[in-house]
């Protein structure tokens, strides 16, 4: 079985992230760029299938600038067999529609049984790219899963819905997105880091792919920064703090 994991490099959520006020685009320099944690979890679930079944091939695919190759390197050191980097200056600032059309074209050329992705990225939070890819490829999407069974010929899983969960299934090929309820990812070990350097990374440009042109795109109209919050009163509890807080809530009409 061939599993392609879609990984996105994003600014580390542990740091303060910035938008460029002129363009509304991510300031890539403001925070360190890392593989989105949700994509590490997706990769982990692919690697567990590979651990249990040696015939499994795991491919990490990303669309992003030069530096995104570091995300692929990490995926390879965790245990992916190979990687695909879609790298093209014309993709700078691509919106979700263009990203999905490009990923779909690359997936078509790579081939796969299963695509694993994150339910939403931490920078865009759009949560739409995998479903757009599924529509381009006319495939079923099992989205927002909290658990999954991936077998030859079929996938099933539990989807987090609004007032509860749903059990869902589909035949292969199919696209799955995982949520944070999936297990945390393994760390690359020493052997993984060494062998990653020898694993194949294919670089694809847009001209090598058949990406349908789109007449529609999203544009940023304005970007405004909010002033940060200031800290207020801080009491060290000496036995009376609870009463003072109750008083504060009453005075501010919060009870």
């Amino acid at each position, binding site marked *: 079985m061939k599993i392609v994991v879609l990984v996105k490099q994003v600014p580390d959520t542990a740091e303060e992230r910035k938008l460029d006020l002129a363009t509304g685009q991510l300031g890539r320099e403001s925070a360190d760029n890392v593989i989105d944690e949700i994509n590490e979890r997706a990769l982990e679930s692919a690697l567990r299938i590979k651990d249990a079944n040696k015939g499994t091939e795991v491919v990490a695919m990303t669309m992003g600038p030069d530096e995104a190759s570091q995300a692929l390197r990490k995926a390879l050191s965790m245990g992916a067999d190979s990687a695909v980097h879609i790298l093209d200056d014309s993709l700078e600032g691509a919106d979700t529609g263009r990203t999905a059309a490009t990923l779909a074209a690359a997936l078509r050329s790579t081939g796969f049984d299963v695509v694993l992705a994150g339910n939403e990225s931490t920078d865009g939070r759009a949560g739409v790219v995998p479903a757009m890819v599924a529509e381009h490829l006319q495939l079923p999407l099992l989205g927002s899963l909290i658990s999954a069974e991936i077998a030859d010929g079929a996938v099933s899983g539990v*989807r987090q819905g609004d007032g509860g969960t749903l059990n869902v299934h589909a035949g292969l090929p199919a696209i799955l997105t995982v949520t*944070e309820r999936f297990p945390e990812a393994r760390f690359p070990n020493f052997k993984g880091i060494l062998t990653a350097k020898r694993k194949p990374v294919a670089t694809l440009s847009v001209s090598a792919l058949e990406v349908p042109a789109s007449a529609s795109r999203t544009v940023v109209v304005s970007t405004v920064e909010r002033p940060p919050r200031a800290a207020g009163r801080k009491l060290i509890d000496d036995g009376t703090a*609870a009463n003072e807080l109750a008083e504060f809530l009453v005075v501010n009409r919060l009870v």
Partner: protein
Amino acid sequence: MSNVLALIEISHRGEIAASSRGLLVAAATLGSPIAVVVSSEPLADDDVARLGELGAARIYSAVTPAAGTVLVAPAVDALSRAVEAYEPAAVLTTNTADGREAAARLAVRTGGSVLADVVQVRTDNGTVVAQHSVFGGAYTVESAVDGGLPILTIRQGAIEGQAPATTADVSTAVMEATTAGAAVIDRFNDDPVVSARPELRSAATVVSGGRGLGSPENFVLVEQLADALGAAIGASRAAVDAGYIAQTAQVGQTGVSVSPQLYVALGISGAIQHRAGMQTAKTIVAINKDEDAPIFDVADFGIVGDIFTVVPKLVEAIKARSN
């Protein structure tokens, strides 16, 4: 006035989702709201009346045996038919898993673009403009679609108010069950309905607990304060991971974003990813025994103390004052 489609979510038990109110407010802001509803049986009169009360000028009722058995695809089919029939200026869905997936597929099918996680809408010379709250409210970004249909996913609980009530005209379309290229729903597992507490996303007051609670049993402390304040319950990811409370209560970067009048953080350190979900609250109160906890950087009122001694006293003091 131009038409605006709003995909109404109906639970498998037939209840109209609470998010429909805000969705129709947004639709009415942009034009004449058409509610698109997918169901396996024709809509009951009650539902038609309710959607009219919520502001739907028209209801496009798609009836198909696939509703409730095929995942998302029936909604996409219904929306693309309605797009053809009504040539809308915009399509709105809720920013739920279902709503986002329907919006995404519709964008590919109709050559439109998605504006995701929208908190407010307006028109500017006929252009639909969407507002987003980015990086936990650190930025307010406005976006629009250049060429093609704008498809907006509206954040639950973000849009307040009520659209003018109407009596909705109903158009019914019978759709065949398409299953090709779609996932199948085998079963619904409803969350047990356990509380009369307000809904987290729209609550005026939220009390959240973190890893500092120490155990699922201790989490009852959060419930006691929440009930004294009439609040909804939230949690940090660490509390969810530790199994103190359901994942749906998670506040933060990868959980729910809340903007209540009052947010109380108990035993929560205030990691940047948690703050991303609550720092737009009007007033923030934090109780934490570590005086260097970053939550105090955003708190209007902080207590450096042990939640197990402070919170019971606080509950008593609030009860005494409200009597």
